[in-house]
């Protein structure tokens, strides 16, 4: 109880409340601008969190990401351009509703069910995390190695790209993580005489580069999105209670699927939305209405993507394994603020954990009034020309990278990673897998080498303990799954040809 009272006191501090409000507005604006993803919004916030208290820093990440995921629905609905990849699954449906004159209903459903999804996801975090934390206390380096490896493999499995390219991206990220002296012997590795590389590649310049700079690079060579027609909106929340009652089952299914996908290391809000929208269509009583402006899929997928956001924090807080790219950034912030992820976080820093839960709930509650205001302002904000937004972003990338260590080499690294991210995306290599490799590289290596030293080079102890055996088979299954699918598809094609 004392921990709970302490948590409320932590959240009600003026700096935390200001951080929540400011990051909410920031998240709503950035998420609503086409091409600027929730991950990018969060990555650009990291340098600012350096200067905030631990709880205020985490509050900015939680609030900005939740708001950005919702407000990504706004340009998707009004312009048919998803603001964030998490909205892409149901953009066509929402836009079809706008064309039918139901923009208010579509945007209201996005807002209402996002808030519900966020709160249900938070409840899952509150219930699941302490239970898993007790179990995780008995984990050794073998289990941690397999967990981290499984996380990396899941990231490659869920990528909407070739699994081989996703694995290659992940390996490239791990290779970047090898740079520097953070290795078992403290030997400089792959530094090529550059002193600035001795400390290794920091995840923040890499994240800002691949998510923000590469986006500006893409804007340089693609046509600007169309202008939003001027329009006034009616009541945003009208009819939402009716939809909640009518599509109760779909809403809960979306929440549960979102939670499961969020907990899965490496899979995030965008995957949750795609899976939930597909499930909604498959099991709908009116599947023929999908694609013509039917709200059912929006209810399920909107709830799902926000539910996954909160549950994505479960592996991040417990094992330091990111649930998605946003929690990958959050892990960096947690370490920076002395809240090192791990099961002991729930016993030794219980008040901070309760504070985190309260922030999640608070962020999803204030999402409703702020979201309504954002929808009403959308026609003005969405009219901001790309030529005025992107230059400010490139400037923020430079200053943000510099702020992380007052080192201009970080600015150079941001540029390099921008190029790497741009080339990779243009050629079908998922950058999320690269980022997860960079973030988790030292953890995977540390647990791998420690386990090998403990076992005296013998691979058997890696699979002897029951939990590590289960995790090992899941990881190998994830590794071999694409090969199985490929062989199956090939055999089917041959059979069809014959």
């Amino acid at each position, binding site marked *: 109880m004392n921990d709970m009272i302490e948590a409320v006191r932590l959240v009600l501090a003026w700096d935390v409340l200001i951080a929540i409000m400011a990051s909410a507005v920031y998240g709503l604006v950035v998420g609503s601008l086409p091409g600027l993803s929730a991950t990018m919004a969060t990555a650009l916030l990291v340098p600012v969190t350096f*200067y905030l208290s631990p709880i205020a820093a985490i509050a900015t990440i939680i609030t900005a990401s939740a708001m950005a995921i919702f407000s990504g629905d706004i340009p998707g609905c009004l312009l048919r351009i998803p603001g964030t990849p998490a909205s892409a699954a149901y953009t066509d449906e929402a836009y079809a509703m706008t064309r039918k004159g139901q923009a208010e209903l579509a945007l209201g459903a996005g807002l209402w069910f996002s808030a519900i999804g966020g709160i249900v996801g938070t409840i899952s975090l509150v219930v699941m995390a302490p239970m898993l934390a007790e179990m995780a206390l008995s984990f050794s380096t073998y289990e941690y190695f397999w967990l981290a490896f499984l996380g990396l493999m899941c990231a490659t499995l869920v990528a909407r790209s070739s699994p081989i390219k996703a694995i290659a991206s992940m*390996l490239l990220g791990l290779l970047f993580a090898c740079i520097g002296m953070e290795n078992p012997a403290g030997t400089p590795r792959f530094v090529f005489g550059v002193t600035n590389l001795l400390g290794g590649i920091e995840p923040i310049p890499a994240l800002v580069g691949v998510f923000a700079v590469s986006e500006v690079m893409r804007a340089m060579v693609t046509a600007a999105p169309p202008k939003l027609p001027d329009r006034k909106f009616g009541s945003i929340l009208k009819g939402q209670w009716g939809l909640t009652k009518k599509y109760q089952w779909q809403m809960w299914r979306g929440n549960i699927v979102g939670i499961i996908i969020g907990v899965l290391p490496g899979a995030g809000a965008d995957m949750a939305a795609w899976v939930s929208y597909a499930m909604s269509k498959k099991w709908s009583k009116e599947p023929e209405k999908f694609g013509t402006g039917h709200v059912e899929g929006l209810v399920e997928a909107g709830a799902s993507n926000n539910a996954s956001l909160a549950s994505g924090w479960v592996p991040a807080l417990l094992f330091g394994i990111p649930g998605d790219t946003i929690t990958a950034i959050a892990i960096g912030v947690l370490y920076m603020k002395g809240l090192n992820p791990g099961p002991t976080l729930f016993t030794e820093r219980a008040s901070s954990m309760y504070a985190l839960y309260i922030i999640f709930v608070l962020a999803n509650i204030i999402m409703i009034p702020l979201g309504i205001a954002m929808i009403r302002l959308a026609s003005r904000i969405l009219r901001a020309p790309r030529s005025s937004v992107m230059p400010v972003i490139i400037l923020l990338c430079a200053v943000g990278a510099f702020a992380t260590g007052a080192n201009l*080499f970080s600015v150079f690294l941001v*540029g390099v990673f921008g*190029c790497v991210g741009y080339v990779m995306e243009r050629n079908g290599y998922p950058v999320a897998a690269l980022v997860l490799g960079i973030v988790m590289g030292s953890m995977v290596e540390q647990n791998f080498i420690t386990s090998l030293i403990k076992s005296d*080079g013998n691979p058997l102890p890696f699979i002897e303990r029951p939990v590590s055996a289960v995790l090992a088979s899941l990881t190998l299954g994830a590794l071999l799954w*694409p090969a199985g699918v490929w062989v199956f598809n090939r055999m089917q094609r041959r059979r069809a040809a014959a």
Partner: protein
Amino acid sequence: MQLSDRITGLFLAGLGLAAAWGGSRLPAVPGQDVGPAAFPMLIGGGLILCGVMIAFGIGHSFEVPEEAEDERHSSAYGLRALLPPGLLLFYALAVDHLGFMLTAAFIVASAALALGAKPKLAVPLAIGAPIFVHAVFAKLLRVPLADGILPAFW
């Protein structure tokens, strides 16, 4: 900048080979079988395998087609993508000499004009954005942004 799978695959295989070779030359830890070489060699091996498979087109059927670049323009138009990293490089090299205000103004103006902004938008943006960013980062967050030849007026 779209390249064929053969080129990217072979590049990755080459990188993997270099990583494994570089890793194998790292000094061992006395008295231990595993040292700093193990992980890079493992990654290198994985990259070689993936690179060769990509070069042979394995897994290509899983891919979603990429959105095409603006085809109304020549292929040299694609080089515009290099402007943002170029501006970041310029920032890293020039900010200590010119100062934050001038460097930031140049970056914002160049990027805005390259994205098709008219001078009546680019010029106020190039003046306003550095002042705003300086106020937030240097004044509020105490980030030591260089003064150079034009210090901020506060």
